[in-house]
């Protein structure tokens, strides 16, 4: 398995405050990687900087090319896609148009296949395809945001807190779909506060605290690490189910 995304010695600062410090991150092909950590640890900042929304000091290589100097739009065209925390949908446009625009940078034939793929993953979106995105429920909006990102046939999908504010049953649904994506050849970088659910579907995990990675390794090892159990999983990690 080769490295699809390789972030080396990344620093991200808001003015004088460094929100991310000396981070090294790797996502390989056909892998689900999760970054867990408390609110304010710098997870969202890191994802946004990898996408090019925030300036990053350090290097970001994607699919063998240095992408740290190119625009967001070109990173999208290269196959890197982000579903941001606030989803950033086109609220006054319908579901179908939102999805269509997700395929803005790819050819029509691939876009047609993407439509089919997205509607198979999220049958709910097909039912609501003429409804305005702003009128969807929170769960449906999350599905649409993921659907829009998948329309561009990305190699790596970065998900920022997909479970935030959603009912447990919908969270379970979304995590099931994330694990299905791996089978469909899409690698996933998942940032999540719901550590228990994230560690269940991930292959590898990083633990972030105050802007730095303090631990990394196979998801199963991380899930049984004493410190992680105490800080993020509570004392009942074995057999407990948050989803």
């Amino acid at each position, binding site marked *: 398995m080769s490295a699809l995304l390789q972030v080396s010695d990344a620093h991200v600062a808001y003015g004088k405050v460094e929100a991310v410090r000396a981070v090294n991150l790797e996502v390989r092909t056909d892998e689900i990687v999760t970054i867990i950590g408390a609110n304010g640890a710098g997870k969202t900042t890191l994802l946004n900087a990898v*996408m090019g*929304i925030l300036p990053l000091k350090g290097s970001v290589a994607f699919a063998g090319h240095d992408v740290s*100097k*190119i*625009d*967001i*739009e070109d990173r*999208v*065209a290269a196959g890197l*896609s*982000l579903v*941001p925390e606030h*989803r*950033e*949908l*086109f*609220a*006054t*446009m319908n579901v179908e*148009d939102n999805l*269509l*625009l*997700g395929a*803005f*940078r790819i050819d029509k034939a691939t876009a047609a296949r993407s439509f089919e793929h997205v509607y198979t993953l999220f049958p709910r979106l097909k039912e609501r395809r003429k409804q305005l995105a702003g009128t969807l429920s929170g769960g449906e909006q999350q599905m649409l945001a993921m659907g*829009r*990102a998948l329309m*561009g046939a990305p190699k790596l999908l970065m998900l920022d807190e997909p479970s935030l504010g959603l009912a447990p049953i919908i969270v379970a649904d979304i995590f099931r779909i994330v694990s299905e994506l791996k089978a469909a050849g899409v690698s996933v970088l998942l940032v999540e506060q719901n550590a228990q659910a994230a560690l269940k579907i991930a292959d590898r995990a990083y633990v972030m605290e105050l802007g730095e990675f303090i631990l990394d390794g196979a998801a199963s090892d991380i899930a049984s690490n004493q410190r992680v159990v105490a800080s993020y999983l509570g004392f009942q990690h074995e057999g407990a189910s948050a989803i």
Partner: protein
Amino acid sequence: MNTTILLFLLQDGITNGAIYALLGLALVLVFAVTRIILIPQGEFITFGALTYASLSAGQMPGTIKLAVAMGVVAFAFDLFTFRKALHARRVLRSIAVNIVFPLAIWGVMWALGGRPGNIALNIALSLLIVAAIGLYLYRIAFQPIAHTSVLVLLIASVGCHLALQGFGLVFFGAEGQRGPAISSDAITIGALRFTGQSIAVYGITIALIVGLWLFFGYTLYGKALRATAVNRLGARLAGIRTSLSGQIAFLLASVIGAISGILIVPITTLYYDTGFLIGLKGFVAAIIGGLVSYPLTAAAAILVGCVEAFSSFYASNYKEVIVFTLILPVLVLRSLAAPEVEEEKD
């Protein structure tokens, strides 16, 4: 006042209102997509009108030289942007858009050799020249600062207006000009006489509005522009370049401005600075529409046109004052109704 005068004034108001509607729509479009309040819209009107009038009189308008010069600057800007990754395809595309396109227009005009071409050719050339200027204006003045605040963009916009107005004086002089009418026919219905020109104004306005509606509702690029207007970050994450949306918006706005100019130059004498005042009336309509609503802007434009027509009948000295005073109650009402918002930063 009798019914005939009332009808005349209404007719006059609706004809002018139709032009203001076009300008107002262009302003709303540009603001929604780029957050720029397009003050130079007035220069697009003047340039379109006076380029057309010059061509019809068999003169070579100075605007073509401006288009070529701006194209060269835009190309230099592109090269500077590409310096980190100089792909042959991007450079060739930039040469085609910024260098070959204006030179080709110049070539056609040179081939005509100062002979007045026919009306359709003159209109087409005028539109192409102004479209090129609009496109390069965005590339040079706004694209490099696209992510700054609305205030900075507004200041740049005022600067562009002043610069272009200065160029207008150099190219066309202080004398007013008129252009030939698209059609000299007229039909009479009852007491009202409709000139071919006023019918052209209605027809072209309606065709443009329908065209814009189809463009935004049914084409990928139209939808991409709407997406940029609704959610800039979302659009960028979908791979839609803010600069592409901005260029399309400016292209549409400059063409709409030029069309408006060409439509009115046979009706009134235009000077190098007349466009600004006409553009401002479109702006009044756009403000009444809250810079977001297209239908409200179009309706407000017709209202502005009618208020102008009636005030020029009753108190012609105060015509402009009355029209621009319309904006005050609207601003007061809007500021009372709207909750306080911090300026969005992205």
